[in-house]
Structure formats: C-alpha cells, structure tokens
C-alpha cells in the first residue's frame, strides 16, 4: 500500500460559504416612514466589497431634505408609538429579534461581503448578538418602572443615531433596540462603507409590521451625519465612532436640549501576569487584538507582559500568529478578513510606518495575502514605550504594541496613562490580584481572564475620552429615558 499521508503536510482546502441564495438589489433607497423611497439628492454612492474591490450595490446619499423627511416621520410616529401599550411595543421588538434569527445566515453573509469580516465572526458573534439585543430590550418595554422606581420614566422623543462600520448590524441593534423599547422613535445612519445589513434590517422591520416611521434608516457619509446631528427636531444623539468625531458632535449640540451618548475610541491595556494561565492568556491576546481585524474600539491594542514571562509569551504569541489564516472573509476557515476600506488600510499602514520609524521592532508572520482587496497581516511591535505614537493612538487595525513591566503599581500606572478609558484585560490566577486590578484600571469594561466578550445584558461604555453613557443591560436604558 502506498502511503503519502506520512510525508506531505496537511493544509485546509478553501471552504467558502455558499452565496447563491443571497439576493442583493443593485440600488438601495432610503427607508423612511416604513417605505423605501428614492433620495431627494438623486445621488447614489457605491458600496465596495473590501476583499475584492468589486462594487456590490449603489446606496442612496441622503441630503438635508431626506433627513428632514425622516425626522418628520419619526416625530409623527412618536406620538402614537410612545403611547401604545408597552407590552404591545415589546411584541413588535420580539418579532424583529426572531426575524433576524430566521434570516441569520443571510445577514451574516452580507455582513462579511460588505464589511470584510470573517464569516465565522459575523455568523457566530455579530448576528446572534444583534438578535439577542432586540430580544433583551423587547422584554424591558413593559417593565421600565422597575428599572427606575418612583422615577416615572418617559421616552425622550426622537433619537438620531449614527453608527460605525466595524459591527454594522450589531451597532444598529445596540442603538435601535433600547431606543424603541423605551418608546422613542429613531433616525439611524449606518456608516457609508457598510450600509447593507442596516438596509436589510429595514426590510425585516417592514415585514415585522412595526408602525411606520418608528425606525427610519438614512444612508450617506459624514455630511448626512451632520444633517442629523444638527437637526433641530431631535431630542437625542447617539453616536458610536472615533473620539475625534464624537467631540465634533458634542460640540455642535452644545446649547441645544439634545441629550447625547458617545461610544468612542480606546487603547485597551491587556495585562498578562506571570501567574496567568499562559496559553489561555496568549489566546486572549489574539482575541483582544485580531478579532474583527482589530477594528474594535475596545481592542486590547496595548499589551503589558510581566518581565519574567515576556520571552515565553512573545514566543507563543508569534507561534499562534503564524497559525492565523488571513484571507477571503467568506471562507469558513478565515481568521482575519479584509480591512474595511482603502482609507482604513492607509491609516493602518501609516501607523505601521510610524512604528518602524520610531524604532519599534515589527513582527508579521508570513501569510499569503490575496492580490486584490484591502489586507493587513497580523502585526506586533516590540521595543516600544508609552511615548511611542503606536502606543498612544488608536490604530483600529490588527496591530499590537507590546511592553513589559515588573510590578503591579507600574503596570496600573502605565495602563491608566492614556486619555482613553474604554476597556482593559487582566490575566492572573490570583483572585486578589484580579480584584485589585479591576478596581484600579480606569476603564468601563474590564475583562479578567477573558477578552472581547459582549452580551446584551452587560453594560458597555467608556471612561474619560472613550465617551459617556452605557449600552447594554439595565444601565443602557437611561440613555433613552427622562426620569423625574
């Protein structure tokens, strides 16, 4: 008998998700007052598949008139939506959750085509979490007085919501679900590079029978966003995105009665102590920085390793990086997909260049990157310190900056030495150390012996320049309520 299996090395064949059943229109209109309508601007822009550079569909560019119309429809809908029986309100939202689950695969595939994230993540993380967010907040609709006893909670009115491109459907869910559960109506703008799943969600909302105008989805870029932010008839602005834009938004609503919540940037510290479960910590580092190509506001982009285990951890980290598969987002075996846009790739490459110029020691495993599309291999930098640009600024890509430390006080000081305060990670098997660190780290979310976990019941949001307000859980309700 011949026996080849002993000698040649084994590799996975490509396993692309079947996309035959996905139906996308060539052109997408605005979702206003329960209907898809052509934009007053008559302008459309192209949504590009970041993995191939191919055009997927044309998306409407909403102008001032379009936004006016959307806000007016939301305002009109608010009158009745805020007054219908809360338990009926709940049922609509439960129904949306269920319909997302029914069409989960379709959502996942479109999310990966449009945004470049690996199908494994859109299938296992984005879409299930989006559905569960609707499910969770649906249940709150008729229970709000238990969340705020004696405070007579009331909806705010109409909310303008602007979301980023890193978790397109999930962020839409984070924004829409609590808002409408509390009796508000919304005008939501997805990011211009990733509008498709929000528009698919509009289809679901239409099919669900949700009263017209409760959810309006207008597409466009920054200009459309600023029409929303500056619209005089909104009661609330909810934004997730960069700290820079968040400040601009906050600035422009000063002097108005608009409330705001901002989920902004981060530069999460991920801290590995010598007594950590080292192999799981290494996996935690991988999840912290390479999840969703590092396009994650709470990414663990600053790694602190205790000196006594630094060599081992870095060695294991490099090993693990070399087993990461970078490529076709639709391939079920892909670990790291495409960078969301050419612009973002340029930004990341700029930081990598700066990292090198400032003396950082770079490591990238060899990987075969496709020739078309936007790609960045998993990257780490050694020999950097707190004063290096790549340690201070949010890169929003698969780039990790590694520093070592000796003592607990030292690492706490360094971890907190940033204007951001969104997230942090701690790895140690010593209970007291976990409590000490989780207490001392100035961050809205602290993952101990895990990282990048999300749940609809778990409040998420930042300290300091990472923004204010919480999304998720009971704490996420107050952003959409007036209380006495």
């Amino acid at each position: 008998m011949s026996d080849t299996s002993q000698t040649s090395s084994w590799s996975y064949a490509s396993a692309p998700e079947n996309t035959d059943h996905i139906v996308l229109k060539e052109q997408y209109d605005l979702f206003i007052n329960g209907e898809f309508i052509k934009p007053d601007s008559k302008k459309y822009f192209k949504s590009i598949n970041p993995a191939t550079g191919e055009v997927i569909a044309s998306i409407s560019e909403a102008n001032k008139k379009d936004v006016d119309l959307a806000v007016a429809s939301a305002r009109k809908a608010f009158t009745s939506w805020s007054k219908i029986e809360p338990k009926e309100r709940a049922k609509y939202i439960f129904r949306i959750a269920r319909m997302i689950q029914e069409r989960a695969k379709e959502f996942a595939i479109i999310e990966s085509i449009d945004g470049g994230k690996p199908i494994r993540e859109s299938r296992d993380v984005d879409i299930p979490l989006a559905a569960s967010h609707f499910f969770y907040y649906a249940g709150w609709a008729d229970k709000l007085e238990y969340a705020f006893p004696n405070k007579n909670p009331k909806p705010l009115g109409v909310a303008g919501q602007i979301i980023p491109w890193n978790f397109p459907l999930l962020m839409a869910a984070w924004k829409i679900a609590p808002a409408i559960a509390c009796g508000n109506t919304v005008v939501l703008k997805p990011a211009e590079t990733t509008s498709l799943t929000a528009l698919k969600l509009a289809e679901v909302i239409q099919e669900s029978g949700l009263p017209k105008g409760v959810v309006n989805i207008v597409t466009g870029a920054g200009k459309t966003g600023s029409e929303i932010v500056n619209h005089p008839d909104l009661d609330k602005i909810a934004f997730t995105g960069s700290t820079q834009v968040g400040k601009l938004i906050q600035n422009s609503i000063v002097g108005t009665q608009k409330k705001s919540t901002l989920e902004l940037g981060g530069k999460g510290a991920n801290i590995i102590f010598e007594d950590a479960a080292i192999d799981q910590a290494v996996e935690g580092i991988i999840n912290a920085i390479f999840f969703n190509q590092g396009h994650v506001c709470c990414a663990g982009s600053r790694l602190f390793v205790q000196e006594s285990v630094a060599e081992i951890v870095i060695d294991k980290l490099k090993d693990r990086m070399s087993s990461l598969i970078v490529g076709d987002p639709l391939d079920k075996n892909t670990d790291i997909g495409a960078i969301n846009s050419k612009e973002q790739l340029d930004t990341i490459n700029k930081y990598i260049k700066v990292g090198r110029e400032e003396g950082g020691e770079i490591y990238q495993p060899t990987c075969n990157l496709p020739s078309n599309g936007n790609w960045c291999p998993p990257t780490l930098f050694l020999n950097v310190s707190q004063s290096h640009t790549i340690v201070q600024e949010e890169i929003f890509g698969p780039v990790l900056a590694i520093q070592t430390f000796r003592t607990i006080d030292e690492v706490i000081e360094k971890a907190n030495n940033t204007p951001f305060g969104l997230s942090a990670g701690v790895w140690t098997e010593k209970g007291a150390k976990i409590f000490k660190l989780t207490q001392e780290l100035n961050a809205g979310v602290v993952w101990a012996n895990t990282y990048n976990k999300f749940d609809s019941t778990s409040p998420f949001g930042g300290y300091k320049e990472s923004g204010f307000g919480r999304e998720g859980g009971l704490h996420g309700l107050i952003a959409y309520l007036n209380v006495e």
Partner: protein
Amino acid sequence: MSFPDLSKIPAIDKLGVEERVSRFCKRSIKNAAKKHGLHLALSMIDLTTLEGKDTEEKVKRLCYKAGHLHGSLEGLPNVAAVCVYPNFVRVAKKELEGSGINVASVSTAFPSGQSTLEVKLSDTKFAVEEGADEVDMVISRGKFLSGEYNFVYDEIATVKEVCGKAHLKVILETGELDTLDNVRKASDIAMYAGADFIKTSTGKISPASTMPVTFVMLNAIKDYYKATGIKIGMKPAGGISTAKIALQYLVMLKETLGNDWMNKDLFRFGASSLANDVLMQLEKQESGIYQSVDYFSKD
C-alpha cells in the same frame, strides 16, 4: 531527566481552553483536505481490543483488519499499531509480521494500576519479552491525587527502564484527574520521567479523551519541546469514534504542535470503531454516496 519544577507549571483556564477548542471544531475540512486528513487519521490509529472476553481468534481477526482495511479503496495506509493485553502480544506479533504495523501492549496492572511495583514491572517485562514494540502503562492516580508526585514519577521512570527499546506511552487516565490543572501537572511529570508518548485514557473510565484534555496535553508537549528539544508523542484514546471528531483532533494537533507532529511517530488515536467510520467517509468521498455500516467489516 529530572523531576519537573512543579511551581513553574502554568495554570489552566478551563473556559479559555474550551473556547480555543471550539475554534478547532469550526474549521471546515472539505474535499482534498478531507481525504488527506482521513488517510492521516487512519495511519495514526492504534486499533485496540482490551476486553476481558478477548481471545486469540479475536486478536487475529483484528490484526487481519489492521492490514486489510477496506479492499475497495485504493492507496489506504495501514493503521499504526494493534493494541492488546500482554498475553496476546505474541500472537499479534506473529500475525503482523512484515506488515510494518506495531504491536502495543498495555501493562502495569492496566487499567486501574492498583498493584505493587514488582507486579507492574514484571507485567511490563513480560510484554516486552513477548515482542511488544510499544508499552501503554497507567499512572497511579490515587498517589497522584494524594500529592505523591515523586512516587508517580519514580514509577514511570522505573517502567521506562524495563521497556528498553519499546516505546513507552503513559496513560494519565484524565477522567480521574478532576481538573485540567492536574492533567497538565501529570503530563509534565510523565514527560520528565521518560514517557515517549502521553496518553489520555484507558477507555475504561468515562469521560475518556476529550478535546480540552488533549489540548492541555498538547500544550504541555509543546512547552516540554521548547524546554528540552525533545518531541513527545500524544495519544488521545477512547471517545473518538467518528471521522469528524478525528479531523477536529487533527486540526487541533496541526494548529498547536504543527506539521512535525502530524505523523504516527508522534500522534496516535486509541480507538476501536474509528477506523470503520473513517473508511465510510473515504468511500463517500470517492463515490459521492452516503454509506452504511453493513458494508464495512467489524472485527
């Protein structure tokens, strides 16, 4: 070799292990990769019979099966070894002569290991003298759980001496070790005491091999290799009954220890029914038709 520094053994976080394992299970293995993987799996099987009711006839049939897996499929590899009780080593050895298939024997008062060192050593000595190429010993779990790590270490080291040229696989019986931290500790003790392979289970205790347990042991092997330059083999045993599970183990092996370990010298499946399921899957790959167990010989 010397006793390992137990204070340096890293802790294990169970949830983290399970999360990593679930990633392995999500790898999609199709087409050529599947066929290649299944061939690889076949070549790594220790075809096993360890029953009280075993007879020479049963062992002979198993040996025949080992060399004649499935006539209708071209280019199939042999399994790696046949694994039997010591008293069947001689007959198995004879049946497998010239096939390239090894004979493995369990020893040291398998499966409980509850006996004196003398008995365990003579058990091993007998198996080796009968011609066993490989010896699968069990550790003293009772001693391990009561913290007598030196006892466990010494026992393995002594058995190793008796093995001579025969390869020593050390069964940790992870189903009795309670925690993954213990699995890791026992793995290190076994390797430092001279194991050529570490093995999860006897197959007599439930749970037998699981992916999390095997993953912890693979990591121990990796750390041992980094520390000493010595490559230790891994043998999950029991509970691996389908081709699908076997492929998931191979994914885990590849992504943890890399291609160097992807061969029968460093990885084995201890299994009795796995071979047939792999053959069924291969037949399906060839013909495109889903198969029935009735068309695959059971021995």
